[in-house]
């Protein structure tokens, strides 16, 4: 996922690894990525913002 990229609704945006399992985080709607807040390998907490993007349509 990169800044400026367009994501379709329901595509896989992130993969989190928890309890030995890959958890896929899907994009809630169509839009353009404005900011990615995490790096690959980061440990994330409940409620953390992973990315911001502007929805289109």
């Amino acid at each position, binding site marked *: 996922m990169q800044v400026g990229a367009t994501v379709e609704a*329901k595509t896989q945006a992130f993969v989190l690894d*928890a*309890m030995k*399992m890959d*958890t896929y*985080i*899907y994009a*809630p709607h169509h839009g353009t990525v404005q900011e990615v807040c995490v790096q690959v390998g980061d440990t994330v907490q*409940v409620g953390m913002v992973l990315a911001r993007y502007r929805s289109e349509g």
Partner: protein
Amino acid sequence: MDALWTSTGLANMSWRELAMICIACLLLWLAIRKQFEPLLLVPIGFGALMANLPLSGLMAEGGPGETGGLFHYLFYGVKLEIFPPLIFLGLGALTDFGPLLSNPKTFFLGAAAQVGVFGTFLAASAMGFTPQEAASIGIIGGADGPTSIYLTMKLAPHLLGAIAVSAYSYMALVPLIQPPIMRLLTTQKERAIRMEAGAEVPTWVRIIFPIGVTIVAALIVPAATSLIGLLMFGNLLRECGVTERLTRSAQNELINLITIILGLCVGVTMSGDTFLRAETIKILVLGCVAFALSTAGGLLLGKIMARMPGSPVNPLIGAAGVSAVPMAARVAHNVAQETDPHNYLLMHAMGPNVAGVIGTAVAAGGLLALLK
């Protein structure tokens, strides 16, 4: 020449041993090729293989001036009930009770999923097993290997091989056994319920929890103290923050070493004359029933909780009450995502999942108190 031939294992091989070697190879194949609980089924399968090679004398008792077989001695760890509690020590150090503590009502789901233990206990009694045997079979429904081994050694040691194989095989089959039951017992709407993230659990709660559970469990079910006590001790090591070296040992070397030896020992009990019986088939069938009943028990309480006021509960997490950590929690998560890919149940399901471990150990303690 004749003497040489009769001293070989080949001349002493019976059909039972041959059949058991095939079963041992089947277990190894399931573990290696299909990755069914490989960390357990590889040692169990290899132990079973060695136990059925004639004249090896692995379990020989020895006598005055004569050394017994290797496994005669290693098996003392199982016979004297040392290994299962040590595994629990490692499990405690590996388990994060945070999801349970941030949503304590999920504890009841872990308790409800013990329905299969008692239901199967009654069913097995009705099928002609003694109460002690029936209890050991029922505990398979708790989906917890060390507890099953512990209880079986105390109540019905002759069934150890069959019960351990049944417990560990069904744990590997959780992703196949549970989803149909989960889809059958819940509605689309229930499966789509989203849960709220729980509050962060402060350190002092995480430290008080293992101490409190040990005291309460030991006072109510004294027979479960060696299991619950060591589970909670392992957890205290993890949470207290000042015993990092001990925690690392418990999480890695200790639990791995004991798993290797316990697995081999369980495998070695699978000799032809104890395993190749009609009872083994009955135990395998009853074990599956136990798993299904426990899954249903957790789901049904989950459905009731979903209807109660308060923070929303997705009934699917009830199915994770059958310990089998963390596999059952993953199954709940995956089944929920079939309905709504934006629903993330994994950490919510860990609450009942770890509660199930405590629930099963308490159930085992209760059965022990009743039947010993």
